[in-house]
């Protein structure tokens, strides 16, 4: 039995604002010739323009969606409308779902089994050659030597990256000698293009974002920060053979060496009950990046599930803010692992207010992560007993774009509460809080 989601939680699953509106249009019992809920699945038949009704159902445990309508939005308005009615207690309980629903569930279970089998096979293979999996987990000198060896094996690419980053180091040194004030946008454009050619897309991305930094109010300090971190990455790459394995791995990933999904899924999994703290979508170069933050109840580990979609295309909507999932999560390798994938899900778990920590403890945790990986830009925190004000939360500064968080202030009323927030170098971005009744209130 899955607990009912609030209307906000349902609407947060919509791919865009027009879908939200369309969903509200079909969220009326009169539009549905039949509907039902069995505890883990909600389904219904919605009258469309054609002769045959659309068959829509949602597996609440994932959630996963299916609808026979031709819409390319995902989840479509019918699935969302169905969820809205369910959220408002407008879907009657049913003993058993109709055949078309159970068939779909069976097909999905079968696919999940196959995927699990493939994963097991991949893990077994990885276990057979421990050198590949090791660097992700432990900071031993041996594994960095392994990387250095791999580096030589990949020498054509590494040679190009190395020369690209050498140019970056020289260019940054020149900037500092001549003065930051002289830097102009076309300098960065050109440099970023050359770094793409040099097969260092991670550094190219950092360089191409400099124009935005230059436009900020306190740009001299901010620009120096960014220059410093780019320089640090270039130096770390040059001297990667001297670094501990996980840090070397972090440097390679940040430079732009990819880790495949399969490699990550084949890594060791952390099973926990993960609270879904919140999410933020951000448009970058015609791609929308969706960040969903989790925190494990038992392990206390934070995780970031990152997904991308071209603008206007549906994003991964399988994680509902304010819910909790029992799942195996595998982390990308690195010195302060955060980015992760959900490898497998288990039974539904009742949601609860997550346990939080004091601002001091939270800062210690962030400091620990930065000490491992100084390029960290985001870290999910759950703060307990904090009082929000217009520019601060528990005494910590808010991100400039999160100033005047009125909804958060209203829920608090000047009293301490639990708030999930994203730490960023510019300040905290509140994600979710929990009101007196323990209900998640989405803030972002």
């Amino acid at each position, binding site marked *: 039995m899955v607990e009912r989601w609030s209307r906000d939680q349902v609407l947060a699953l919509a791919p865009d604002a027009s879908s939200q509106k369309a969903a509200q249009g079909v969220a009326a019992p009169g539009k549905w010739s039949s509907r039902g809920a069995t505890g883990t699945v909600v389904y219904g038949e919605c009258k469309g323009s054609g002769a045959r009704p659309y068959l829509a159902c949602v597996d609440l445990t994932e959630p996963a969606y299916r609808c026979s309508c031709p819409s390319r939005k995902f989840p479509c308005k019918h699935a969302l409308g169905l969820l809205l009615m369910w959220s*408002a207690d407008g879907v009657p309980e049913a003993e058993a779902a109709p055949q078309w629903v159970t068939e779909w569930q069976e097909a999905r279970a079968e696919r999940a089994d196959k995927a699990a089998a493939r994963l097991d096979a991949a893990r077994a293979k990885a276990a057979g050659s421990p050198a590949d999996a090791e660097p992700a987990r432990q900071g031993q000198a041996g594994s960095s030597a392994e990387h250095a060896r791999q580096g030589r094996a990949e020498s054509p690419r590494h040679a190009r990256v190395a020369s690209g980053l050498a140019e970056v180091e020289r260019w940054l040194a020149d900037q500092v000698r*001549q003065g930051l004030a002289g830097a102009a946008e076309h300098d960065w454009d050109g440099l970023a293009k050359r770094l793409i050619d040099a097969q260092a897309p991670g550094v190219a991305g950092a360089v191409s974002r400099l124009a935005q930094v230059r436009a900020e109010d306190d740009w*001299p300090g901010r620009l120096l920060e960014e220059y410093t971190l780019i320089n640090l990455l270039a130096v770390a790459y040059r001297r990667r053979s001297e670094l501990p394995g996980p840090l070397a791995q972090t440097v390679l990933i940040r430079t732009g060496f990819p880790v495949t999904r399969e490699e990550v899924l084949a890594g060791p999994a952390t099973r926990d009950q993960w609270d879904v703290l919140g999410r933020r979508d951000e448009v970058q170069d015609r791609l929308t990046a969706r960040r969903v933050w989790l925190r494990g109840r038992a392990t206390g580990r934070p995780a970031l599930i990152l997904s991308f979609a071209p603008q206007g295309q549906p994003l991964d909507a399988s994680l509902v803010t304010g819910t909790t999932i029992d799942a195996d999560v595998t982390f990308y390798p690195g010195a302060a692992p955060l980015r992760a994938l959900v490898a497998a899900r288990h039974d539904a778990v009742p949601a609860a207010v997550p346990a939080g920590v004091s601002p001091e403890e939270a800062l210690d945790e962030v400091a620990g992560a*930065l000490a491992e990986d100084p390029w960290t830009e985001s870290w999910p925190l759950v703060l307990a007993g904090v009082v929000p004000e217009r520019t601060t939360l528990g005494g910590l500064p808010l991100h400039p774009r999160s100033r005047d968080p009125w909804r958060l*202030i*209203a829920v608090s009323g000047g009293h301490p509460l639990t708030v999930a927030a994203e730490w960023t170098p510019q300040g905290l971005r509140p994600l979710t809080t929990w009101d007196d009744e323990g209900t998640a209130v989405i803030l972002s």
Partner: protein
Amino acid sequence: MSTWEELASAALVGTDRRPYDGVLLEDAAVEVARRRAGGGLRRPGEVAPPAPAPEEERPAVARRGAERLVRILGGEHERLLPEWLAAAAGTGRRVPPYVLPELLERGRRDRSIRVHLGVLAGQRGRWLAGQNPAWAYLLEEPTGETWELGGAADRRAHLRALRAADPAQARRLLESTWERETPDDRAEFVDVLGDGLSMDDEPFLESALDDRRREVRQAAANLLARLPGSRLSRRMAERVRACVAISGNLIAIEAPRACDKAMERDGVRPKPPRGIGERAWWLQQVIARAPLAVWGHPPAQLLRMRIPDWDADVKAAWVRAAVLQKDPEWARAMFGWDPIADLLESLPPDEQQELAADFVRNHDLDSQLIMVLGGVSSHWREGLATAVLRKIVKVATTQPWNLGELVKLAGERIDPALFPLAESYSPVESIQQVAALLRFRADMYRELKETS
């Protein structure tokens, strides 16, 4: 200057011009990590945080009710917002805090909903309004406080409640503070006496005719006109008799030639609005405030008589008199001559509905029909509802593009308990839209009865 500021200013100017002892980017890297890890954080401390919000005195609307409010605020059946707010305020509840910013923001743009927000926003809402100047208006709305301590809005609400329970007591309370009230308040307070009006109020109202403020004098005159035995009614009757002569089937009118001080004192305004002559203006006002009995015949008969001069002015004044004096017989008769919504308000609810239903049956769908329906003050019951649904079905086949407003109004005004009637009435899309809205409202009222 901190290390970081030194580094930043050296880098800005360039180390060629401002030599830096060491490798700047390396030292900066250490500083960046230190700052990001919290080393550069300044704790605020100068500004004391506001005191926490006081405890609430009223229970919150149950979760599902609040969710429906969020839906309405989000644009779903947006015109129902005032109805939701009125219904919720009527249950003596408040809204849960997370909805407040959106609701207060709406009240900032839409004054019409503010009157309910004073109660619904609760202590938390007022606490928020104290922090955000954009929401400060909330602090002026009635909160349920008392006569002695409350703001103007609270005192009006108090007086209104007292008037409903004990009219004489309310008048005495008002008289006791009358001299100290501001002119704006005095005008509003006089209006409150309209409820439970009797000849006992006459001396007080008569004295209010000498008030310094015109709005106060107008309000008092309007009320006195509703009391046929008042001195004002008698004076107005005199004036009408001076300009009217009825013989046989003819009504001869000689409009007043001047507006003297006595007329002005009785609320007659000397300056006509643009487009109407002075004498016609004075005539209309005198007739509107004179007791309708002065005409000596029932209105239906009077309407059949001939009025050679000032015909339109006399009839417009009769309409105004029927509205002002809330006379059902006249309102009924004048509605046949000029079907305006104001006249319906002078009739008891049952009759409003019957009259409106007749009108719907015999009148084409146009803006006047919409206005008349808008004037029906209570939820439409079966008779009127059926007449309107039938009209919708009929128009749907001939000019469906014209139905928009009628469909919306029907959904908003038909008694929501009648949603099964609408659902089964016809499969026509417009009727189903009406039914859906009725069901939405029925759910809304049901939820507001729930306790969390």
